[in-house]
């Protein structure tokens, strides 16, 4: 069997799994097309995130463990672009908040300038400290009351500065831009770090981003969450009330509820696929070009690449920004799919490490591997619970009814989810330690 | 002819699943002898050394030490059997101090090794100055000295050196060769790969020329030096 054949078969396998999910309720499958589409949709988003990570790690060897942060920023972008404008928020304090933020940024910039241009010494320390302290208090003096008044506006539902009221699809590129901007800032400061040091720094930055999202209520309501975000597709309920739709559904022999839910999900699937294919094509072209070669050289040996005239710092920054932007886009897509932003749900295990698992299992350095890993691991992530339960049923089938052990085993079945996930991960890595579709 | 002390006999093998690098390659050394392997880059000299040391799969041929077949032993067991090896690259513990590097050389020894260490320091005085500096901060030539010193610390029964003089200044190279002669004359067989081939063959009792994993020429050092073909193709004229 040729390599290509094998790899195609792997994709076919994932496809078949998802189809089976829709078709049959044999074993751990649910036999629901809705369920299959839900898995597919998140799988597509995961695949996009995996491409983002793969670009950073597989192409350039950047160990970014801050994916969660960029995903969350993508989510924030959805709120900021697509929720309705709240004029009251802007008139009461929104403008002051902006001014305060600009002030803050200027203080920091001034600090950087001073460290750059003043000779080191006591005087510099004094001036620096002076600017920082004054800046901090001025900032707080403008910021705090403004935030107070914004947060006071209808706190149960709003209490934030609101959005721009733009079409929600625009928030996807916006998410990319927001993430890219953050990545640029982070990259400027932290990209000097190597391997696991960069990892923990990005992990920390991601935690900081989440902390800001959780605690700055004026921005996106903090932990109070933003629900009911607009979406690019019609609401199922509206479809169900649309006689035209009901009729055409009936024409296909579908009941309106099923037809509407599938219609919407399939719509998302289509959009996500388009984004995924576009990004995949772009990543693939880049990888196979001299650009990709340069990146691999940088990954292999930075010192030598630098000596061969490649601006390693700039390239690192470029790829960090790109990869993060892709994660931002995926984050915006995910929030759009959920129609809500809930900062409390961002945890590193799910939003960072799982993505890493996808990339490594798929085969780092290979875009198709990343996509495959994304789809496959997501499928398992969802499906390991029924698998765990199945496993428990098999294990306990021989035991006496009502035995304490059996009860305990069945009770613990849901904890078997992580166990099963670990098992699958270890098995895959055992049989293809370089990933399912390894780098060539 | 009696069995040599250490012999890699008709070895054929390569790295992992890759193609064979060595083809029926034989190298051997006797007590008190210096055997030198020369040959073009990529000929398989280092590979042959590693094969003798058990660091790669030889799927035909044997390695015998003092008449005993050691083909199946792991490298660390061969160390215990008295073999010492200085590889061509990454041959020092960069994060450990010079002195600790030497100590690690004596890892399998249970006796007092301060004398040996003293000897090494005499041989390479610069190491004494740098004894408590991490070896990774040394210059290229200094590292090479640490590496050889480390192998000497083992008090091996046979010493294998892969290009010990690469990057070493002439004065140190001379001293190194002097020392190698001395050591060899104590009865310790020495097997080395050298690109400073002329100097090396001058002190060699036996020389091998490897080309593409095969023995191309074998003879005494003098013979090889005298062979115009060998001189032209491998020794730089």
């Amino acid at each position, binding site marked *: 069997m040729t390599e290509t054949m094998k790899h195609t078969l792997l994709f076919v396998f994932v496809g078949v799994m998802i189809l089976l999910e829709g078709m049959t309720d044999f074993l751990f499958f649910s036999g629901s097309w809705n369920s299959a589409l839900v898995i597919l949709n998140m799988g597509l988003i995961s695949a996009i995130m995996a491409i983002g990570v793969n670009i950073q790690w597989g192409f350039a060897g950047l160990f970014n463990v801050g994916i969660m942060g960029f995903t969350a920023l993508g989510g924030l972008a959805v709120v900021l672009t697509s929720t309705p404008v709240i004029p009251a928020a802007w008139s009461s304090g929104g403008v002051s908040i902006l001014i305060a933020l600009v002030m803050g940024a200027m203080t920091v910039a001034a600090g950087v300038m001073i460290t750059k241009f003043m000779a080191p010494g006591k005087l510099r320390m004094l001036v620096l400290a002076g600017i920082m302290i004054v800046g901090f208090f001025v900032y707080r003096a403008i910021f705090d009351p403004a935030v107070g008044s914004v947060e006071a506006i209808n706190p149960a539902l709003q209490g934030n500065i609101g959005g721009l009221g733009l079409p929600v699809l625009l928030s996807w590129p916006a998410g990319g831009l927001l993430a890219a901007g953050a990545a640029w800032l982070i990259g400027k400061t932290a990209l000097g770090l190597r391997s696991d040091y960069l990892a923990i720094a990005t992990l920390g930055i991601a935690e900081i981003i989440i902390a800001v999202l959780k605690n700055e209520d004026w921005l996106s309501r903090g932990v109070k969450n933003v629900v009911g975000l607009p979406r690019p597709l019609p609401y199922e309920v509206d479809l169900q009330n649309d006689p035209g739709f009901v009729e055409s559904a009936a024409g296909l022999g579908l009941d309106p509820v099923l037809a*509407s839910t599938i219609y919407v999900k399939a719509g998302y699937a289509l959009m996500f696929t388009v984004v995924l294919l576009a990004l995949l094509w772009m990543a693939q072209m880049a990888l196979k070009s001299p650009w990709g070669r340069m990146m691999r050289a940088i990954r292999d040996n930075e010192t030598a690449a630098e000596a061969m005239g490649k601006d390693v710092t700039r390239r690192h920054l470029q790829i960090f920004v790109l990869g993060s932007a892709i994660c931002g886009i995926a984050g915006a897509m995910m929030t759009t799919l959920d129609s809500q932003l809930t900062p409390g749900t961002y945890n590193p295990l*799910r939003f960072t490490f799982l993505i890493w698992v996808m990339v490594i299992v798929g085969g780092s350095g290979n875009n198709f591997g990343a996509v495959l890993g994304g789809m496959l691991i997501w499928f398992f992530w969802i499906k390991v619970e029924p698998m765990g339960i199945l496993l428990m049923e098999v294990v306990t089938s021989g035991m006496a009814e009502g035995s304490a052990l059996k009860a305990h085993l069945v009770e613990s079945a849901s904890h078997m989810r992580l166990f099963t996930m670990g098992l699958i991960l270890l098995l895959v890595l055992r049989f293809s330690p370089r990933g399912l579709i390894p780098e060539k | 002819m009696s069995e040599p002390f250490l012999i890699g006999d008709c070895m054929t093998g390569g790295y992992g699943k890759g193609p064979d690098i060595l083809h029926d390659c034989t190298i051997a050394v006797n007590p008190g002898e210096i055997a030198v392997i020369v040959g073009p880059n990529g000929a398989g000299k280092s590979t042959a050394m590693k094969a003798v040391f058990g660091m790669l799969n030889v799927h035909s041929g044997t390695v015998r030490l003092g008449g005993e077949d050691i083909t199946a032993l792991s490298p660390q067991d061969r160390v215990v059997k008295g073999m010492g090896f200085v590889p061509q690259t990454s041959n020092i513990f960069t994060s450990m101090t010079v002195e600790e590097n030497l100590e690690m050389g004596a890892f399998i020894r249970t006796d007092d090794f301060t004398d040996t260490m003293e000897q090494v320091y005499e041989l390479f005085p610069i190491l004494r100055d740098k004894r408590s500096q991490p070896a990774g901060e040394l210059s290229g030539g200094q590292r090479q000295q640490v590496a050889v010193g480390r192998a000497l610390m083992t008090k091996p029964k046979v010493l294998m050196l892969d290009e010990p003089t690469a990057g070493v200044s002439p004065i140190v190279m001379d001293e190194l060769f002097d020392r190698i002669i001395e050591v060899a004359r104590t009865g310790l067989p020495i097997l080395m790969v050298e690109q400073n081939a002329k100097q090396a063959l001058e002190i060699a009792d036996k020389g091998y020329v490897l080309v593409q994993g095969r023995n191309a020429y074998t003879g005494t050092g003098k013979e090889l030096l005298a062979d115009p073909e060998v001189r032209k193709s491998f020794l730089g004229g």
Partner: protein
Amino acid sequence: GGHAKEVKLGILFGFTGPIESLTPAMASGAELAMEEVTKSGKLLDGATVSSVRADNGCVDNGLAVANAEKIISEGVNGIVGGDCSGVTGAVLQNVAIPNGMVMISPSASSPGLTTMEDNGLFFRTTPSDARQGEIMAEVLKERGVSSIALTYTNNDYGKGLADSIQAAFEAAGGEVTIVAAHEDGKGDYSAEVGALASAGGDVLVVAGYLDQGGLGIIQGSLDSGAFDMFGLPDGMIGDSLPKNIGPDLNGSFGQIAGSDSEGSKIFAEMAKEAGFDGTSAYAPESYDAAALFLLAMQAANSTAPADYMGKVLDIANAPGEPINPGELGKALEILAAGGEIDYQGATGVELIGPGESAGSYREVEVKDGKIETVKFR
């Protein structure tokens, strides 16, 4: 119409994740009601009720939505859940509403859910935290507390609750010295305790979870002598708290949803018999959530969500025969006969306008290592 012989209720809780220690008892509570109904054999001509458990990770929207889809595809007739407000909102919007599925949550208490557009599909057996804040302030004032330090678990529940407590208490003339968030499941709460202690106050109000950060904060405060009196909202009420903390907790007080019904005691008994802890947080609410489903189905004589969703408020509220836990069989009979019931259940259920619990509370105090009800509000 064509009665299914089997009624399926989904239980969508965070069996893994930050509240994984609460959910087993909650699920057992819900299943207790199902079992009771099945045993009675009176639901829709002897239908059996089975539960379909699914995990939502408490904080994992993706998983929650996928699993909700899954259980719907397995043909559940209603979903008990979710538990945490975040995932509950996600599932409601993305799965329940599109599929026209009814959800009754036992524990999602965020005020935000009150106003969510739900097409009448969402109910909860726990009151919104907006109400609880007022009660807490009342309790504090009545006990002569003039200043409090306030800490909350950093999620929509904790934040919403803390906001409402602070607003109500300050409105009543009290002083809130500090409002500090804490994250659940973290390793160490010394920083929070230090800050709270420094701010001072007569009482430390802990709007958290009793086996999460809340416990850690109380333990830390007691150990370091920072506070010796605590105000405990619903998330902190449960037997495991005094058990874990010991006698030092005596005298602390708080409130939890529930009315002057004997329901809770009955439920606790029933739970004990069934082998789980009925006083565990939200276990009674879970029982009620499941019961409401089944009773509403009976009243509508249908298991289709569209049919029975309108009945939930009817059976939960007066007029009608009050129904306690253990009396589901009786209730089903009454309904079958066309009668009216006023389901009380384990928590004195009373649903108001948007389909959430009206919010009667019982004030409790820890006495001799036991949580005792002092008064109802």
